[in-house]
């Protein structure tokens, strides 16, 4: 029997699931290799679990989502979280350090109807996760690598090194050293394919913190380059603001 693949959505923008549909060259072959058992963005046919591989997009922001992810974990042999929302809480985790009630009031005329948790949290805060695909959105090659590796029984190649390594592999000029542009690359996990520095822009951290991220020293360097507190706060407060290493550094520059 073909292995089954399921795709699930929590609080997110759909961009990471879309990355699967963006594998135009591989999609039809993939559909022949696995049974796509649940993927609402692509099909109205749904099959019950268990699933061999579940890809989970989005963060947990409501009580209902807490329940749903537990069920999905029970139904899945391998659970792979995809994207900044699922692995770090996403951009919506910016509310974690803020007054949720005030946020609701700012956006909704009748905030009392809004049923959402005070925080946006990654999937791994709720259930064990087998592999994490970082990025906002995830990288297509990493997604395909993960699926092919898991089908083959291999450990997916998901390097834990910094964005700087990608810069240097690609031969990109360092924007921080050569242009004095603040760049999150030294504390951000690589994998995007070196997108921002390649166009002369500082990385804004969408792959989340690398292991051993020395955010304090990098923040000090940003300050040395002339960035003010608010700018530093917001550099650590982008789409992976909820990741503990970044959240802590952001908090140090808040207020």
């Amino acid at each position, binding site marked *: 029997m073909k292995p089954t693949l399921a795709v699930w959505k929590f609080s997110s923008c759909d961009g990471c699931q879309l990355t699967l549909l963006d594998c135009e060259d591989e999609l039809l072959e993939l559909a022949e290799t696995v049974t796509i058992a649940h993927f609402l963005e692509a099909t109205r046919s749904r099959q019950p679990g268990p699933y061999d591989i579940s890809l989970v997009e989005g963060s947990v922001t409501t009580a209902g989502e807490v329940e749903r992810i537990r069920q999905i974990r029970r139904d899945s042999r391998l659970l792979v979280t995809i994207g900044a929302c699922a692995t770090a809480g996403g951009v919506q985790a910016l509310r974690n350090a803020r007054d949720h009630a005030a946020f609701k009031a700012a956006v909704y005329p009748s905030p009392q109807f809004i049923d959402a948790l005070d925080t946006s949290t990654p999937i791994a805060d709720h259930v064990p996760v087998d592999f994490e695909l970082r990025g906002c959105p995830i990288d297509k090659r990493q997604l395909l690598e993960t699926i092919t590796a898991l089908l*083959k*029984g*291999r*450990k997916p190649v998901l390097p834990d090194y910094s964005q700087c390594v990608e810069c240097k592999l690609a031969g990109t000029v360092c924007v921080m050293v050569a242009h004095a542009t603040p760049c999150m690359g030294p504390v951000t996990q690589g994998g995007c394919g070196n997108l921002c520095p390649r166009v002369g822009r500082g990385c804004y951290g969408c792959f989340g913190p690398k292991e051993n991220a020395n955010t304090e020293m990098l923040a000090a360097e940003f300050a040395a380059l002339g960035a003010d507190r608010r700018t530093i706060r917001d550099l650590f407060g982008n789409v992976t603001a909820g990741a503990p290493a970044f959240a802590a550094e952001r908090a140090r520059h808040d207020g």
Partner: protein
Amino acid sequence: MTAIARSYQPPAAEADMLPRPFRVVARQQELADCVSLELAPVEGAPLGFVPGQFTMLYVHGVGEIPISISGDPSVSERLVHTIRDVGAVTGALCRLQEGARVGVRGPYGSAWPLERAFGRHLFVVAGGLGLAPLRPLVHWALANRHRLKSVALVYGTRSPDNLLFLEQLRAWAASEGLELGITVDRATADWQGRVGLVTDLLPGMLHDPAETVAMLCGPEPMMRFAAQALGSAGVPQADIHLSMERNMKCGLGWCGHCQLGPFLICRDGPVLPYAELHRLLTVWEL
């Protein structure tokens, strides 16, 4: 560091990274999570090796890892490896059935300094799966029993159901003059033998420390304690040899992963003299 004995030099000086296809000709489930594979080349000559060496084993599309050769060095037609399933590649190797193909590169690395044991006592200390690279040495020692004063093996594992090659060891002890000491960290209900650390067995089994050559393989802390104990008992540091483990990608000294201080374990090791290791083993995260 030039004094490192490298008693076996593979013939090819120009190497490439291409594996040679081998076939699994026999498979033996040793323990719940541990399998021995006997391999023969699909084509061409078998691999010769000296006890202590390892090969790089490649499973199609899954990966390539270093595994010690665990068979009898006098039988080169069958290349034997004993593998514990701890991850992706070892898991795939353990699941291979007879007839399946495996890529092989090697053999690589230094060997147990066999000659140093001539006319002396050979003292072998194994911890857990560390017995695998030591088994070819024991084969060799028993075949050369007349040239050695004695051959002793101290073997420790976590629990009795983790004891490798037990039948064979007991047979050797019974008929070939192998002095065997076995101990486990944790006993099971039916365990009659000793419980404790390998170091507990050393005093009773060491006959003449100054005339002893010791060869050790096992988890790093175990080797450190055992080597220390042997040293304090009087075995010369230059006669204590350890087989070290580090991450290895190429096996040829080109990838840099297997460094331990001055050594590239794949090239200078895995077998290295304690005299040169002892300062390194205590250094934090080296």
